[in-house]
């Protein structure tokens, strides 16, 4: 049973029935799923939620599916980790990490959006699915399409990390690398979707796909015993995740699951080599100037972010800010998170940590703020970004070990 009212254009307000559609046919604005919130409020109580399994589907009344999900059944329910050791380094007393680097099945937050989109493709009885991707979406569409028994067409920029390529191909997807950056891939996909009857998750399945990101907001609030954090730091590529987490928290307020008075400041993080949303926030505008990306944070390398306008609107409105960081700072952020909390994140997570550090130094995030960092992807996927010294090699003899490490520790 579905609680979806229909789709509505975010720009001009025109309404559409639930169907395969990339955007508003009048003004090209993105379409939002709208719900029967009063009916949902009766069903979705704190008590009802506490007994449901910890996956994104516990919030299924707030996701745009008509029938029960068939794939991605283990997605979501990722840990919210209290991070005191990292907090001490950053100067935040009350720090948590939303750890989507262990999401199922492909170790990134994209598993949330593809779980919704591929189930929707099954509902629409589409014969194939696909996406334009900077890597994580590619992995996730390929895996979930395989689980659904659907062929997938996946287009990526030609210069992605090796493990993101392998972890797409292995599922039997048709992987195509395109000479150009993500924005060129995007343009091509838009034209492919115009010609073929397939569901591309971030093109004509986008209104459904994007809703999956709201579950990050739902989970964080529930894991904080039904509170919204004071501050949340979110990495931005296209900018959709930030505005969907915002929508998710608003919905919880509307449903009475969290207090109306709680306010979260949204902080957006980008790499300096691809910072069009940060640039707009700094200029005090919502109008995005596209850039040509040049950063090791390839998963965030979208120079023409489709949802940048909304991210750049919401961030200042929420009392937040946006910052960027250099490639060196990204690597240092990855290392700091790993060494303090034992969590190995990809470059996008390094961006989040490095930017959080700046925001504290700037006084924008205060030590007492209950702060959540969104760690959206896994470090094993972006090994190329690291420059680690080769480990020591020794003979299998105690003397050889002690020559290097002897005396380093007291042995009782």
């Amino acid at each position, binding site marked *: 049973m579905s609680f979806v009212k229909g789709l509505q254009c975010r*720009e001009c307000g025109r309404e559409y029935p639930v169907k395969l559609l*990339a*955007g508003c*046919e*009048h*003004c*090209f*604005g*993105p379409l939002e799923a709208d719900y029967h919130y009063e009916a949902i409020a009766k069903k979705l109580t704190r008590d009802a939620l506490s007994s449901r399994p910890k996956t994104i589907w516990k919030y299924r009344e707030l996701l745009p599916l008509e029938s029960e999900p068939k794939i991605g059944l283990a997605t979501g329910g990722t840990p919210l980790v209290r991070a005191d050791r990292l907090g001490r380094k950053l100067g935040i007393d009350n720090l948590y990490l939303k750890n989507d680097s262990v999401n199922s099945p492909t170790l990134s937050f*994209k598993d949330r959006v593809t779980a919704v989109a591929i189930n929707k493709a099954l509902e629409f009885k589409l014969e194939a699915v696909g*996406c*334009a*991707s*900077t890597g994580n*979406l*590619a992995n996730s569409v390929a895996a979930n399409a395989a689980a659904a028994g659907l062929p997938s067409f996946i287009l990526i920029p030609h210069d992605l990390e090796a493990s993101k390529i392998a972890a797409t191909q292995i599922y039997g997807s048709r992987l195509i690398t395109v000479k*150009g950056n*993500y*924005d*060129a891939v*995007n*343009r091509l*996909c*838009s*034209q492919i979707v*115009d010609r073929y009857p397939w569901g*591309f*998750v*971030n*093109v004509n399945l*986008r209104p459904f*796909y*994007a809703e999956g990101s709201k579950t990050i907001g739902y989970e964080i609030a529930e894991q904080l015993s039904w509170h919204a954090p004071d501050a949340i730091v979110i990495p931005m*590529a*296209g*900018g*959709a*995740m930030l505005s969907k987490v915002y929508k998710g928290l608003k919905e919880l307020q509307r449903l009475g699951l969290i207090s109306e008075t709680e306010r979260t400041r949204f902080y957006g993080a980008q790499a300096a080599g691809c910072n069009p949303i940060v640039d707009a926030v700094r200029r005090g505008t919502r109008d995005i*100037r*596209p850039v*040509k990306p040049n950063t090791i944070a390839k998963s965030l390398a*979208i120079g*023409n*972010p*489709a*949802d940048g*306008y909304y991210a750049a609107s919401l961030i200042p409105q929420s009392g937040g800010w946006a910052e960027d960081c250099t490639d060196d700072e990204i690597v240092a952020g990855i290392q700091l998170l790993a060494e303090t909390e034992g969590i190995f994140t990809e470059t996008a997570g390094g961006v989040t940590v490095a930017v959080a550090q700046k925001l504290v130094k700037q006084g924008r995030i205060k030590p007492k703020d209950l702060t959540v960092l969104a760690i959206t992807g896994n470090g094993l996927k972006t090994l190329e970004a690291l420059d680690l010294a080769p480990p020591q090699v020794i003979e299998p003899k105690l003397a050889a070990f002690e020559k290097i490490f002897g005396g380093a520790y007291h042995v009782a």
Partner: protein
Amino acid sequence: MSLKVVIPSPLRKFTAGAETVEVQAATVQEVLDNLDSKYPGFRASVCDESGGLRRFINIYLDGEDVRFLENLATRVNDGAEIAIVPAISGG
């Protein structure tokens, strides 16, 4: 200058279903002007009230986003290809 314009499906209601049309123009602005006189209502779908490109529409000249060139004032050469492409989400 004669050039080819690639029309996305939501705009083909103006072009009687044609995926590409030929126009004569010297700038991107003239491309839109000429498409609008040929297909009344075309411009209002692509441009907002102030005449600028709508936020969720991108125009490419031979593969390059015109915002990296001179926007609507960008000059076009004979035989060039203009693609009008709706924005799509991140990935």
